């Protein structure tokens, strides 16, 4: 399998607080890769290191064959045209409407006509489950779930090959969350994209994630498919997966499949 992202021996520290101590993981092409861990375990920071928002204290990250520590400006820009990012809190541009937020990259990077851009934007708005009137609203007029959806639509605007999602389903209603999952699976299959998603959502983990890693105690304590991870007896894995609630969800998801 082609490796899309490789994280090698990442160390992240702020002063004397160490967040990551030699973290390793590999994301393969066309996979939906999950990152799981307690709040504050450094998932968002790890994602920021993959998308060149933060330089790791030590270690290396490769994305689509580029070594990020000494990447050239042009290569960095071309990487940025190939990925889409859904931030944990949306990070929509507050002075633009939802439609303008989605349209921005199309407008700047392609010569697609205004009319066609409108059609693309409207389709994306509908794909993520927003009502079409949402296009004209400013981010301040959106609810938390709507912000997530609008941010996903923006991340999908240029049909990226690589999608980073930071807690995409948190803040969504359960039905909306499942539609989100379905859309991500559909896009993965139709467009061959690779998805890295940070999630706590057990249903997403059981149903759509192919492989994932568990971040705890500054390390990746388990990595691989669900079966692989469940073999670990790290306390966090035990606590997260081996309880009534988790098993009930697993039974429900398995029943559906």
């Amino acid at each position: 399998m082609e490796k899309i992202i490789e994280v090698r021996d990442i160390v992240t520290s702020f002063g004397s607080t160490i967040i990551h101590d030699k973290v390793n993981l590999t994301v393969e092409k066309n996979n939906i890769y999950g990152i799981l861990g307690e709040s504050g375990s450094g998932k968002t920071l790890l994602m920021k290191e993959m998308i060149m928002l933060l330089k790791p204290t030590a270690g290396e990250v490769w994305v689509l064959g580029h070594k990020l520590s000494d990447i050239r400006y042009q290569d960095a820009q071309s990487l940025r045209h190939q990925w889409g990012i859904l931030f944990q809190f949306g990070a929509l541009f507050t002075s633009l409407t939802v439609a303008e937020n989605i349209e921005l990259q199309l407008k700047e990077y392609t010569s697609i006509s205004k009319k066609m851009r409108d059609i693309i934007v409207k389709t994306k708005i509908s794909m993520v489950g927003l009502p079409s009137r949402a296009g004209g609203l400013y981010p301040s007029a959106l609810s938390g779930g709507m912000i997530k959806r609008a941010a996903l639509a923006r991340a999908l605007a240029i049909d990226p090959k690589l999608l980073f999602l930071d807690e995409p389903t948190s803040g969504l209603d359960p039905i909306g969350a499942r539609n989100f999952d379905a859309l991500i699976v559909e896009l993965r299959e139709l467009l061959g994209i690779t998805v890295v998603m940070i999630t706590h959502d057990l249903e997403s983990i059981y149903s759509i994630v192919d492989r994932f890693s568990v971040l705890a105690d500054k390390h990746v304590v388990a990595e691989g498919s669900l079966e692989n991870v469940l073999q670990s007896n790290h306390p966090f894995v035990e606590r997260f997966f081996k309880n009534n609630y988790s098993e009930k969800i697993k039974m429900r998801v398995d029943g559906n499949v």
Partner: protein
Amino acid sequence: MRIIHYFTGFLDIISLMNTPYLRIEEHLDQINIYSMGEWTLYNEPDIHKILQKISPDKPITWDFSEMENFDTSGILLFMIYYEKFKACCKVRVVGYSKEQERMYHLLLKNRVKELVPVQTEGHLYHIGKFVVSGYEEFLKFLDFTGYLFVAFLRYFTHPANIRYKEIIYHIERSGLNALLIISLTSFLVGMVISYQSAVELARFGADIFIVDLAGVSITRELAPLITAIVVAGRSGSAYTAQIGAMKITEEISAMRTMGFDPYYFLVLPRMLALMIAMPLLIFFADILGIMGSMFAASLELNISYTQFLDRLQEVLSVKHFWIGIIKGPFFAILIAMIGCFRGLQVTDDTESIGYQTTASVVNSIFFVIFCDAFFSIILTEWGI
């Protein structure tokens, strides 16, 4: 784009168009469209241009088997022209993959037909909006002033509301930390004023009057104005930006619901801090301004420092100094009120922080100068 005309009867092709993304064969009784290559976002404009040129008048067969790659925009484009061609002719689509078909159905499900009409506003609308919003802003400022005044009065009945720690913090931030820039500006202004006047005075042999001129103008007018302008640019803008950012992140809403009145927690501490710091800063600016002037006088007119100071004590009556100092709290109230008011006017988007910060600095400098002129007139009328 290449269009080749075939006149041979055997193939019955009338014309053929060949491009990297599309091959179009026009036969006598039908049109064959072959989609080829990458039907993706970056090629969309090129493909679109070619498709626009086709106005079919006979049945179409649209073949997908040579398409190498696609994304949502490619399939959307197909969908638009498929719908358009279908309106006039029979269209048969062949050779598509399972993925392409599924993408088509995904997009079809999310196809939004109706276009939201774009509103355009005329000049009259903008003029009207400008006037109305100006009036509304004025009303809001009155409202703000009223609230602030009541909150201030309540200090006397509820002294516990006074936030000493905050006041001291803001004295440090807006006062102490401004010392360097204020001393630099007032020293330079004092120097420039004396240097420029020295040339003129020397022509009349009135060298020593430089002291009268610099002494009065610096203490009475220049030091207060310079201080106010620096503080407006430095602290007034900071107040607007801080409070504005708190407005956007809904910190102010959170404060309100927790019973922390923003007037006590944000506005009054800043205002009182400036009211205390400003006269002290003006006093400091007086000293540095006169030092600058002394420096220029000794360079240009050979007036020694002792001569300068002796003359200064003789001619500069203390009232000029006090008038300069008294202006301090008034300027401070203006700057702090405008800065905080503008911050509270910030709406939900980041652009309005920029707008309000600019407005805050421009307004406060204007009103400081206006207030200064007012002082001049009143004091002259009173003969002081």
